């Protein structure tokens, strides 16, 4: 058995209700106007978890830019800062240069596989609890509820003619939303600028155009996405719901309705018998609380973000009418079948799918950690000149030019001794340094790339001598004519040597 998105309830069931999920309005054309969702307030286990997650995540988002981290003088002391103008990203202990942007790839992979793992275990927990779209929509809905009242009051307010109260209520709500949106956009730019400085600049009107632009952009998107677009972002804009089904299996925990126990559903008056009918009293509270505007009793569907608020709503009702709770529950497809047959529930969190995702996560995660912890603070590049490839000197010797770039990520000047290997009789000089010979000291300035021009000269009798084919590179039969291999050895003060192999060219 596999999961399928049901677009309509199975036929053959007759029911009479007035609150309907918008899916049941079957006349849906290719384009349909949004049917506004008035989510009702609910109390319960999942609601409490959602509040806790919301507070924790918003706390992290707003507080992290203000954390300080001492890196010494002349360096930003913000713990997490992506400094675009000076091309540095600071993450607590780590300082990432643009050359190391590939770490971002691994972080994205970690995110992707983390999401796969979480989904295969717990369904769309990411969507229902931690996705920024969900968190901010939740926050905006809370504000809306405080100002305009709960579901019924909001529906009445929207239907009411324009009045001073309505304008006041709506105005207050939008003002509050815009304030939250502005704080959100404001916090965003703090990740890219020194938080105290940029806050002062924004307030005093001294911030740059880019700062105001992104501040405005993220204020606007927050306001639109959390205030208006809401569930449409999940249903129409986000790719995630489209392939979540591929990550679920019979052992994934998803929000499900125990159809076998609930049907046939019908309204129930106190004192009536429960014989011959299901536990569902068709109160439609599960639909009313759903932020996505769907009916979970239709089965697992594309729109469901797995937030579990319908579970809370139904449990509340079941408790009040004295029927067993968890008619709508977080459960697996397999358990649903088993309990229908009166068998006990089983939990299989560890299964090939989750093991594979976890293993991939572990491999990438440890790879990134090893990479970051053993990351060298110096990077050396040797570039052979393209113009000219070689220069013939007046005494018949051949000279090649090279550019050595030493990338020093540390805060102190690093010194290197340069030596050549691979061509007998080769000597070199460094532009701007005195003397010519077989050894030189190169200083790499801190926190930048230092460039040296190096000229390597091979005297005439050696340059025209093809002996190197027999002596050093006899093993390399495919060596191009007129090209010799040359190795530059840079030894630092600690004695660690970095070798870069390049070429030495001469006339064919």
């Amino acid at each position, binding site marked *: 058995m596999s999961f399928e998105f049901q677009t309509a309830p199975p036929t053959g069931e007759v029911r009479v209700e007035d609150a309907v999920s918008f899916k049941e309005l079957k006349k849906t054309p290719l384009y349909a106007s949004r049917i506004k969702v008035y989510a009702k307030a609910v109390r319960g286990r999942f609601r409490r978890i959602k509040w806790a997650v919301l507070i924790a995540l918003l706390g992290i988002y707003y507080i992290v830019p203000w954390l300080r981290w001492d890196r010494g003088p002349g360096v930003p002391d913000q713990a997490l800062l992506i400094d675009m103008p000076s091309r540095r990203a600071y993450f607590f202990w780590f300082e990432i240069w643009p050359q190391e942007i590939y770490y971002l790839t691994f972080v994205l992979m970690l995110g992707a596989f983390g999401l796969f793992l979480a989904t295969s275990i717990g369904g769309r927990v990411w969507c229902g609890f931690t996705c920024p779209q969900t968190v901010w929509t939740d926050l905006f809905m809370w504000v809306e509820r405080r100002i305009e009242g709960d579901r019924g009051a909001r529906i009445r307010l929207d239907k009411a003619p324009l009045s001073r109260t309505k304008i006041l209520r709506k105005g207050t709500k939008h003002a509050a939303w815009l304030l939250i949106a502005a704080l959100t956009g404001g916090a965003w730019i703090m990740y890219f600028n020194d938080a105290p400085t940029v806050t002062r600049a924004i307030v005093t009107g001294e911030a740059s155009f880019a700062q105001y632009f992104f501040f405005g952009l993220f204020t606007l998107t927050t306001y639109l996405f959390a205030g208006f677009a809401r569930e449409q972002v999940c249903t129409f804009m986000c790719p995630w719901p489209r392939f979540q089904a591929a990550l679920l299996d019979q052992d994934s925990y998803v929000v499900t309705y125990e159809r076998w126990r609930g049907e046939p559903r019908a309204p129930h008056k106190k004192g009536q018998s429960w014989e011959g009918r299901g536990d569902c009293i068709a109160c439609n509270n599960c639909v009313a609380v759903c932020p996505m505007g769907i009916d979970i009793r239709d089965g697992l569907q594309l729109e469901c973000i797995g937030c579990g608020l319908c579970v809370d709503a139904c449990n509340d009702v079941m408790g009040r009418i004295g029927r067993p709770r968890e008619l709508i529950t977080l459960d697996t497809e397999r358990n649903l079948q088993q309990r229908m047959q009166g068998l006990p529930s089983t939990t299989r969190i560890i299964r090939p799918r989750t093991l594979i995702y976890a293993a991939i996560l572990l491999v990438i995660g440890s790879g990134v950690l090893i990479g970051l912890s053993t990351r060298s603070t110096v990077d050396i590049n040797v570039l052979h000149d393209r*113009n*000219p490839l070689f*220069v013939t000197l*007046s005494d018949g010797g051949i000279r090649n030019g090279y550019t050595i770039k030493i990338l020093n990520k540390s805060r102190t000047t690093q010194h290197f001794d340069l030596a050549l290997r691979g061509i007998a009789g080769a000597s070199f000089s460094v532009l*701007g340094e005195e003397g010519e010979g077989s050894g030189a000291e190169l200083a790499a300035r801190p926190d930048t790339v230092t460039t040296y021009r190096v000229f390597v000269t091979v005297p005439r009798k050696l340059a025209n001598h093809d002996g190197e084919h027999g002596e050093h590179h006899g093993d390399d039969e495919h060596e191009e004519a007129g090209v010799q291999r040359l190795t530059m050895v840079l030894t630092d003060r600690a004695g660690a040597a970095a070798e870069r192999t390049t070429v030495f060219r001469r006339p064919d």
Partner: protein
Amino acid sequence: MATKVEKDAITGQDTTGHEWDGLKELNTPLPKWWLYVMYATIAFAVVWWVLYPSWPWFNTYFPGILHYSQRKALDERMAEAAAARSGYEKRLAAASLEQIASDPQLMAFAYAGGQAAFNDNCAPCHGLGGAGQGNYPSLADDSWLWGGTLDAIETTIKYGIRSGNPDARFNQMPAFGADKMLDQKQIDDVATYVLSLSGEAPAESKDQAAAVKSGGVIFAEQCAACHGDDGKGNQELGAPNLTDDIWLYGGTKADIVRQIYQPRQGVMPAWEGRLDPVTIKSLAIYVHALGGGQ
């Protein structure tokens, strides 16, 4: 024109009133979002007309109330860039070439500026990186016609070679053959002698030895005044060193004979007046740093 709008029974949509082979086309309205986007673009265009240069007129155009002009914007950006450079440029203008070369910061700035100016102005003849090409000398080697010190390079760039500038580098090698100063045999002997100077002596034979000997006598009479008794040339006169491995117009005997018969004389323009003094200084620094600077 259809006088009566017909409604399609199934969709309830108006038809266009046209019929092809029994098929009627529905007159489906444009999607609303599409229509609104089009209205928005129209509104945008109107705003644009007012703000930016738009309507042409016979010999002018409406400049828009913002008076925006790409040319002006470019000028502003160039002025900004010039202002950003001006600090260094003032220091370059005040410093001597030796002072620039000994100050790593100034040196880096002059090198970068010199490279840009070189690629724009010098590379068409001298090649990228001063590699030289054809009969244009390499600037990256250690052989200099007119001197390879910073000052000598700057002078050459400033006034050029045979450029017509009163301070230009100038010399003229006589056309020994074309002007009948030497006969063919004499030219041949001198060429043989010159080749022997750089160690490229042809195989020993009686004839060759005799040619070297007679060529040597002619060289001493006709050539040594400029190229020196030993053939090592004279940078004061721009006379090339004939004993080394670098031949501007070719190092085979035929090339040398041709050069003695009817010499080619390269011309380099004077850059003073075309390039500002700071750029010329930067060029001198860059060329000196190509590898052959003395």
